[in-house]
């Protein structure tokens, strides 16, 4: 139901902005240390002192994972068409064009072909900056097609999630993307092609209830919020405070829903190792 409680743009669960900062110096949300932009970049946007992972997008993640930062993007310009002519306090069409202008992205996921340490792969990476990384028809279709390409070319699929859940401005059509993508992943699985799901902060709602939790292997960044219902909704429902560390990567590891937690700096090597075992 309420997957969108937390999908306001760029606002983290604790209400602080935590996207990549613009200035030269940044205060770490983990330890309050001041970090220089260069140092942050070299450290793949994690805090050198406390290991806090700043939220990044597809641009950074493609750079981190893919050999030489090179890739061939698929369905680059696919865009939403506002099928419901949805309007709340603002028209959805306006939200889309404003987001495109602001983020220079066309929607909340980018998909590509590239190589990881020489292994040809298909990668999809979500962009939380685009309407809270919300999943509607475009995300659904792009991921479905990426899964098709992976299946036909027998190349492993890697999906990096960062999302508040399904996009409510496309109503039931957003919901149906969950079924569509899950069906495509079932086909991929039946074809014996590996799929690695990478969960980053945050991964909630309809994405958790579809592709994020359907990997052959689930790899999470440290301390990422991962869950179906958002913490605020749960708190409202049960009327109690939530236990410390609830719905964080470490909690999910303990409960058995992710395979391993990996620091961003080790992500590429870990995925490589996994793929060598599976291919």
């Amino acid at each position, binding site marked *: *139901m*309420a*997957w*969108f*409680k937390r*999908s306001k743009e760029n606002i983290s669960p604790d209400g602080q902005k935590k996207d990549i900062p613009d200035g030269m110096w940044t205060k770490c949300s983990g330890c309050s240390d001041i970090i220089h932009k260069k140092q942050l970049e070299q450290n793949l946007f994690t805090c050198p002192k406390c290991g806090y992972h700043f939220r990044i997008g597809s641009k950074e993640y493609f750079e981190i994972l893919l050999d030489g930062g090179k890739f061939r993007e698929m369905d680059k*310009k*696919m*865009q*939403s*068409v506002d*099928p*419901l002519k*949805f*309007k*709340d*306090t603002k028209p959805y069409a306006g939200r889309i064009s404003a987001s495109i202008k602001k983020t220079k992205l066309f929607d909340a996921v980018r998909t590509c072909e590239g190589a990881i340490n020489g292994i040809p792969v298909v990668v999809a990476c979500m962009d939380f900056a685009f309407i809270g990384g919300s999943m509607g*028809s*475009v995300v*659904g279709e792009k991921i*479905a097609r990426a899964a098709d390409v992976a299946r036909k070319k027998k190349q492993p699929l890697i999906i990096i999630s960062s999302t508040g859940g*399904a*996009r*409510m*401005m*496309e*109503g*039931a*059509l957003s*919901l*149906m*993307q*969950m*079924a*569509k993508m*899950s*069906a*495509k*992943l*079932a*086909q991929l699985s*039946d074809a014996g092609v590996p799929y690695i799901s990478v969960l980053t902060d945050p991964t909630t709602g*309809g994405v*958790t*209830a*579809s592709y*994020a*939790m*359907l990997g052959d292997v689930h790899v999470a960044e440290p301390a990422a919020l991962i*869950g*179906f*219902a958002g913490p605020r*909704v*749960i708190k409202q*429902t049960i009327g109690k405070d*939530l236990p410390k560390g*609830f719905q964080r990567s470490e909690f999910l590891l303990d*409960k*058995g*829903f992710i395979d391993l937690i990996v620091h961003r700096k080790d992500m590429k090597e870990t995925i490589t190792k996994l793929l060598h075992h599976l291919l």
Partner: protein
Amino acid sequence: MAKVTLDFEKPIIELEQKIAEMRKYADNLDIADEIATLENKVDQLRQNVYSNLTRWQRVQLARHPDRPYTLDYIPLITEDFIELHGDRRFGDDKAIVAGFCKLNKETVLIVGHQKGRDTRSNIYRNFGMPNPEGYRKALRLMQLAAKFHRPVICLLDTPGAYPGIGAEERGQGEAIARNLFEMSHLPTPIIVVIIGEGASGGALGIGVGDRILMFENAWYSVISPESCSSILWRTWEYKEQAAEALKLTAPDLLEQGVIDRIIPEPMGGAHRNPQMMAQTLKEILIEELKALKKIKTDRLVQLRVEKFSKMGAWKE
């Protein structure tokens, strides 16, 4: 007669009561003309109200406390029902019921959300909000049905998957995701019917199938109007606007290509005549099942994937 009356039902039900009252004296008094006039009036009123329902009014009908639930339909449309319990992993979720029964003399598995009728039964049924073990029970039994080549019928009626600590600990997201994955290639016919509330992933978790049917006054969307209102308008007050914006009624969803067919309800909604509603449901299920059984399993699964692949709207 309805125990609970919605605002827009009131004038109709009041008139109906008046007519019923007058009938008692009709033998002694010469009021047949008056009754006839009132009956005309109530007919017109019904036509007016029920052919111009707003989306929010349909949501209210879908949630009507007298509306029939899964366990009300099963004895009305099938025989030899035997309920089966548990996910073999954690427990038995009372918000989802499942079991084998005979529909038109043939065995089918029925899986459905189940709400309670009063406070006590609602607590027992968790208000029709499943935990992960509910989805896992559903999957276990659907796979059992497939193993013995029995078709599956899913009846959707939930305000959502339960947002609780235990649900998260036991992987609510994973449970729903797994069902979508497995249902998409389950080698047996699946008919899905949205009979009441189809709230987001909690509904879809048993909602992937070959034919998606929807009751005339049911709703189905990615979020409830209230939650949508609270997020986008930052107050619960805009639920009516949210219902309009979400385009969540059966006619809306037929247009969007999300459902295949609308199942008509008796005038005033399923709760006004559960027997008639059940009869309609039964006839349509038999007809749909007959058509699906003609399709070879491999082809059926292929068509199912294609069906969901087409959903959505985008430009390139």
